[in-house]
């Protein structure tokens, strides 16, 4: 089950906790992986760890031209892009009343607009191949909202609406588009929280713990697999029951 032998996957934000786990899971299932991110060093380290079938494809997602060039670079390196995982994202938290245009725009640009550009860039070859998987990593916050994250929540909710619309357009061509919405996941970002903060978060989660990146990667692996061919336009919530949607 979930065999991706012969498939090529492009993963953005592969230097991060969740992105790295996604890359490892798809690679373990037999896929060739294209690791994209802004920081080259961790990408190189991950590629070295994976060994064969791993390519490093640095890209600054706030640079529109670089984003447009990424699908072509990925196809040149791997042969094709059969699976696209838009995982990269940034936060610039701020109280809404104080939020600057720049804080708003930079988050929208990286999280939402770059995702749109990458989806658009892989669409033509996927249409020709009559097979494709688009998996956009949204967030629980896109569905529930979160104080201080007006920009981030808007970008993540935007990804869901976009994913559904893409799913409609290309479903008849063997291409699926889905979102995965993680809840609180233990990554280097959440490690910075104090024990007290973690405790307060955990009481809001029926599973009484944070998720781990492998649990997000497993959801992505499923949606990328041939077995998930009939699942499209959906959002898979992986949040320990924190929001039952």
């Amino acid at each position: 089950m979930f065999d991706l032998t012969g498939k090529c996957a492009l993963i953005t934000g592969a230097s991060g906790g969740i992105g790295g786990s996604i890359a490892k899971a798809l690679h373990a299932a037999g896929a060739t992986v294209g690791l994209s991110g802004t920081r080259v060093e961790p990408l190189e380290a991950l590629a070295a760890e994976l060994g064969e079938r791993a390519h490093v494809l640095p890209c600054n997602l706030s640079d529109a031209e670089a984003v447009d060039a990424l699908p072509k670079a990925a196809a040149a390196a791997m042969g094709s892009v059969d699976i696209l995982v838009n995982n990269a994202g940034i936060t610039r938290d701020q109280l809404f009343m104080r939020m600057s245009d720049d804080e708003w725009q930079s988050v929208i640009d990286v999280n939402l607009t770059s995702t749109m550009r990458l989806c658009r860039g892989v669409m033509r070859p996927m249409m020709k191949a009559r097979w494709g998987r688009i998996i956009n990593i949204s967030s629980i916050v896109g569905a529930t909202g979160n104080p201080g994250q007006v920009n981030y929540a808007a970008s993540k909710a935007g990804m869901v609406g976009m994913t559904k619309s893409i799913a409609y357009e290309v479903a008849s061509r063997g291409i699926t588009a889905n979102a995965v919405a993680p809840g609180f996941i233990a990554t280097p970002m959440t490690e910075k929280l104090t024990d007290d903060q973690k405790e307060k978060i955990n009481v809001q989660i029926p599973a009484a713990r944070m998720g781990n990146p492998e649990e997000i990667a497993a959801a992505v692996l499923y949606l990328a697999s041939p077995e998930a061919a009939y699942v499209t336009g959906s959002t898979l919530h992986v949040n320990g029951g924190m929001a039952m949607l």
Partner: protein
Amino acid sequence: MSDVADRVKKIVVEHLGVEAEKVVENASFIDDLGADSLDTVELVMAFEEEFGIEIPDDAAETIQSFGDAVKFITEAS
């Protein structure tokens, strides 16, 4: 019929699964040949590949019928 027309017709017949006799000069891809908007995009992609040309999006939108396609490609190639 010109070589271009033959090749365009072959693509249209294969892609839309219609009978060759229906692919006439004024046949509209959408109204007469049962294409949806995504089919028209794919037809343009197939034309680009077959003839080794680039059809920009604004030009692609003007290609509504078999005759439009033959005319555009003849002029472009």
